[in-house]
C-alpha cells in the first residue's frame, strides 16, 4: 500500500489537510516516533502530512512573557541553545537526555509532546516549569497549560486536526532554581523509569516561596501534587521537610509496572528522586 506524502507550506494548509483526510492522515515532523510505528505496521495511514516544509516554527525566543519554543525545534537544537540554557539549564538537561544524539537531532519538541509517550524526559520538567502550549486548528487557536494536555497513554487533548505550534515557559524569577533528575533502570541511555522536574523560588531569608515538582515516566501522565508542594510554603527546606514532601509523592502517586520497573520499585525511586531534586534546588548556587 502506498502512502501519499504531503508537504504543506504553512501551518494552516497543514491543518486543512488534516481536516480533509481525517482518520486517514497522520502528522509527521521529525519522524522518530511515526516512522517506528509505520515500520512495525502499528499505524497504516494513507496520507502523511509532513511538517518538514513549514518555515518559522523552530525558534527559541525570550520575550517579556517568557521563553517561546517553536514546536518544530529539534530537541538537539534546544539542548544547545544558549538562550534556553541561560533561562533554564535544567530544561536543557532534560532535552539532552532524550534517546541519543541522532534521535535528538531529528526529533522535535512538538512531536515529543504529541506522541505522549509516558517514558519521556521533557514532560516532567516542562510541567514543573508551568509550560503552556499553543494549539492551532483549521479555524481555531487556543492556549492550554501542559498540565491539561495529557489524557493517558499516548493520548492528548489534541483534536485530530490540531497541531502544537509553540511551547511557552513563563519567566522564572532570578531567585528561582530548577532541577531535572531521572533514573534509568536498564542502561544509562535508556528511557527513564522515573523522571522528576523541580522548580523552587526562595525569599531573601531562604524560605521557599514557590515549589513545583512534577513526576513523570513512573505514572501514566506526569503528575504534580499541590498538597505536597504546599508543605514547603514559607518554610526552610530542612532535611525533614524534604523527606516529608518526598514521602507524600511516593505514597500518593500510583506508579505503573513495566519492563523498566515494578510499581513497588518505582514508588521507592520516586521517594529517592524527589528528595534529591529538592536537595538540588535547595543547595545549588548557594
Amino acid at each position, binding site marked *: 500500500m502506498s502512502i501519499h506524502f504531503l508537504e504543506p507550506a504553512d501551518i494552516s494548509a497543514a491543518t486543512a489537510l488534516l481536516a480533509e483526510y481525517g482518520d486517514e492522515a497522520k502528522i509527521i515532523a521529525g519522524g522518530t516516533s511515526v516512522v517506528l*510505528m509505520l515500520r512495525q505496521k*502499528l*499505524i497504516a495511514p494513507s496520507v502523511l502530512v509532513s511538517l518538514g516544509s513549514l518555515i518559522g516554527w523552530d525558534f527559541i525566543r525570550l520575550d517579556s512573557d517568557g521563553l517561546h519554543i517553536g514546536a518544530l525545534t529539534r530537541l538537539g537544537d534546544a539542548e544547545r541553545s544558549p538562550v534556553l540554557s541561560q533561562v533554564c539549564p535544567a530544561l536543557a538537561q532534560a532535552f539532552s537526555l532524550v534517546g541519543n544524539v541522532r534521535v535528538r537531532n531529528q526529533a522535535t519538541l512538538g512531536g515529543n509532546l504529541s506522541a505522549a509517550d509516558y517514558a519521556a524526559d521533557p514532560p516532567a520538567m516542562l510541567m514543573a516549569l508551568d509550560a503552556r502550549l499553543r494549539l492551532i486548528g483549521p479555524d481555531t487557536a487556543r492556549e492550554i497549560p501542559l498540565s491539561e494536555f495529557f489524557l493517558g497513554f*499516548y*493520548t492528548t487533548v489534541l483534536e485530530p486536526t490540531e497541531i502544537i505550534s509553540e511551547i511557552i515557559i513563563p519567566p522564572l524569577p532570578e531567585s528561582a532554581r530548577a532541577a531535572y533528575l531521572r533514573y534509568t533502570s536498564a542502561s544509562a541511555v535508556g528511557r527513564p523509569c522515573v523522571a522528576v522536574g523541580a522548580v523552587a523560588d526562595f525569599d531573601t531569608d531562604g524560605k521557599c516561596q514557590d515549589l513545583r515538582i512534577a513526576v513523570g515516566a513512573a505514572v*501514566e501522565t506526569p503528575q504534580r501534587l499541590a498538597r505536597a508542594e504546599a508543605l514547603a510554603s514559607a518554610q526552610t527546606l530542612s532535611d525533614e521537610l524534604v523527606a516529608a514532601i518526598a514521602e507524600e509523592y511516593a505514597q500518593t502517586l500510583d506508579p505503573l509496572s513495566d519492563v523498566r520497573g515494578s510499581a513497588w520499585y518505582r514508588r521507592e525511586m520516586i521517594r529517592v528522586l524527589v528528595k534529591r531534586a529538592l536537595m538540588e534546588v535547595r543547595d545549588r548556587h548557594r
Partner: protein
Amino acid sequence: MQILESFTLAAPREKVWDLLFDIPRLSQCVPGIESVEVLDEKTYRGKLVVRVGPIKTRFSGIVTLTEVVPPSRFASTVEGDDKGNASAVKIFFNGTLTTVEAGTEAAFQVEVNLRGRLAQFGDPVIKATAKKLTAEFAKNLRAQLEHSFP
C-alpha cells in the same frame, strides 16, 4: 496478565443477564464492535476495533462460551488476531452477576495473553485501555437498561 473490573447496574440480575445474552442489544453496548455473527448457541464470530492513541487495531476472532449458569455466572474464551500488525490475543473471561442493594454488581476477571507487535506496549497500557473500555461498556449497558425500563 490479569484484569479485574467491576461495576454496578441499577437493575435486577435477571434483566442484566437477559441483556448480556441478547446479542443484537449487547453488541450495541460493546465499545468498538464492528460486527457479530452467531455461529451456534455457544460460538460467535466478531470484529472489534480498539484504539490506543494513534494506534487503531482491528481484531477478528471467535468467542466461545465455556460455561453458562443463568443468571449468575458465565465463562468464555476469545481468540482473535489483527493480521495488519501481526498481533494475536487469547482471552479467558469469567463473569459473575451478584444481587446487591443498588441492583446488580457485574464483576469480571479476564486473563489476557497478547502476542505480537502490540504486546510491546506492555501491561500498563493494556490495563488502562481495559479500564477505559469497561467504563464505556458499563455506561452503554446502563443506557440500554434504562431504555428497557421507561
